[in-house]
Each structure stands twice: as C-alpha cells, then as structure tokens.
C-alpha cells in the first residue's frame, strides 16, 4: 500500500475515534457527576489537594462541579473536534492544504488554552466542592503543575508543526503550478 493509501486508511480510524470521543467525553463527565455521591472514595481522590476527602455533595454542588468540569473538558472537546477535522482531511488525501494548516494552528492554540483551563479548574472545583461546608472549612486551591506546563509546551510545538506544514503547502502549491 502506498503512503497515501496508509494515510487515508489510518486517518479514517482516527477520525472515527475522535468523532466518538467528542460525544463520549461530555457524557462520561455528566455520568460521573450524576453518580458522584455513590462512587467509592478512591474515585474522588485528587479533586481536593492533600488527599482531603470529598464528602457527600448536595445537588447544587454536583451541578456546579459538572459546570466547572466542563471548562477544561469544553476546551478539550474543541481540540478533539479539530483533530477529527484534521484526520477527515487526511482521509480525503488532502495533506498540504490551507485547511490542514488552520486545523493544526487551532489545535496548538487549543492545547495552550487547555493549560489555562486546567489552571482555572483547581480554584473553581475546590470552591464548588466545599462551598456547602461551614465557614472555616471551605477550601480554595490554585496550582501550577508539570502537566500544565507540558500541555502548554506541546501546544507550542504543534504551532511550530503548523508553520512547517504551511511551508509544505507552499511547496505543494508551487508543485501544482509547475508544468
């Protein structure tokens, strides 16, 4: 099978995967928060720093927790959408086009935004999960970790790849207009 054949074949699989994830991820998040109070303790770890256990949440806190989760998840869904579109283009055999460059550039920006959304998630989630606690027992956290920096760096690298692909697009355009 030629390279283009392989690109088309595997891109079709990735396109289907990302299209499925686009709908599956918010459903899973919704399901998580809807059964939160029945989940075992180890599935709630990490939501608050220092291993502070999360008590049973009232409905308002559950709804807030879902909304707050959708901040980083919404950005992730945007990135998943761009990935699905990129692989849809590869599936059509369109490799060095302006649309591909735009998808990659937007994906890079989305990764960087995902880093910011992740940083924003911590304080919002800690407030949502502890707002029903009595005064003096509410928690506000803010943090920056290596996963956030890694995400930001990967976003930056994807931006560079987008510029490289734009050069490829220019060369392809020149090739197409060479008789």
């Amino acid at each position, binding site marked *: 099978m030629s390279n283009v054949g392989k690109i088309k074949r595997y891109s079709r699989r990735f396109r289907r995967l990302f299209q499925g994830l686009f709908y599956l991820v918010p459903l899973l998040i919704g399901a998580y928060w809807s059964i939160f109070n029945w989940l075992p303790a180890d599935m709630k770890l990490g939501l608050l720093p220092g291993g502070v256990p999360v008590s049973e949440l009232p409905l308002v806190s559950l709804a807030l927790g879902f909304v707050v989760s959708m901040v980083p998840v919404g950005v992730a869904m945007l990135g998943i959408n761009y990935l699905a579109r990129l692989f849809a283009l590869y599936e059509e055999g369109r490799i060095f086009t302006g649309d591909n460059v735009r998808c990659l550039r937007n994906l890079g920006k989305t990764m960087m935004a995902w880093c910011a959304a992740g940083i924003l998630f911590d304080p919002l989630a800690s407030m949502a999960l502890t707002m029903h606690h009595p005064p003096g027992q509410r928690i506000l956290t803010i943090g920056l970790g290596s996963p956030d920096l890694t995400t930001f760096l990967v976003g930056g690298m994807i931006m560079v790849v987008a510029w490289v692909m734009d050069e490829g697009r220019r060369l392809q*355009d*020149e090739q197409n*207009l*060479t*008789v």
Partner: protein
Amino acid sequence: MAIIVNLDVMLARRKMRSRELARRIGITEQNLSILKTGKAKAIRLATLEAICRHLDCQPGDLLEFREETNRADEPDE
C-alpha cells in the same frame, strides 16, 4: 508574473489546438491551460523542449519578459 507565455499565439500560427498539443507533449490539458493563462509558477525544461519541438519554434518565441508596473498583485510573504 513578469514572464509572459505566448503559447496561444504559437498555437494559432501552427494551427494547432491546445488539446492536440497537450496530447503530443504528454501533459494534461489542464496543465497546458495553467501555462496559457499565466498561472504557472514554473515550467520544466523538458516541457519547454517538447513544446518547442512540436510547435517548431524557439523558447524565445514562447517566453517574453515584460516589466510589471503594478506590483500590487504579488502575493504577501
């Protein structure tokens, strides 16, 4: 583009259609059209040789340099 391809003129002189020339030199009619309409960014020497052979002309009969007075159409870099 400051290089003008006078292919239409030579085709008319030799009383040959674009389709016939494209078939003889082994390129698609679409590619020949790109050349005729001035959209081509480059031409291979092999293609130029084939056109000259089949139209019995010199490269200078096909290619003309005309200084551009308006550079507004150049693509942004």
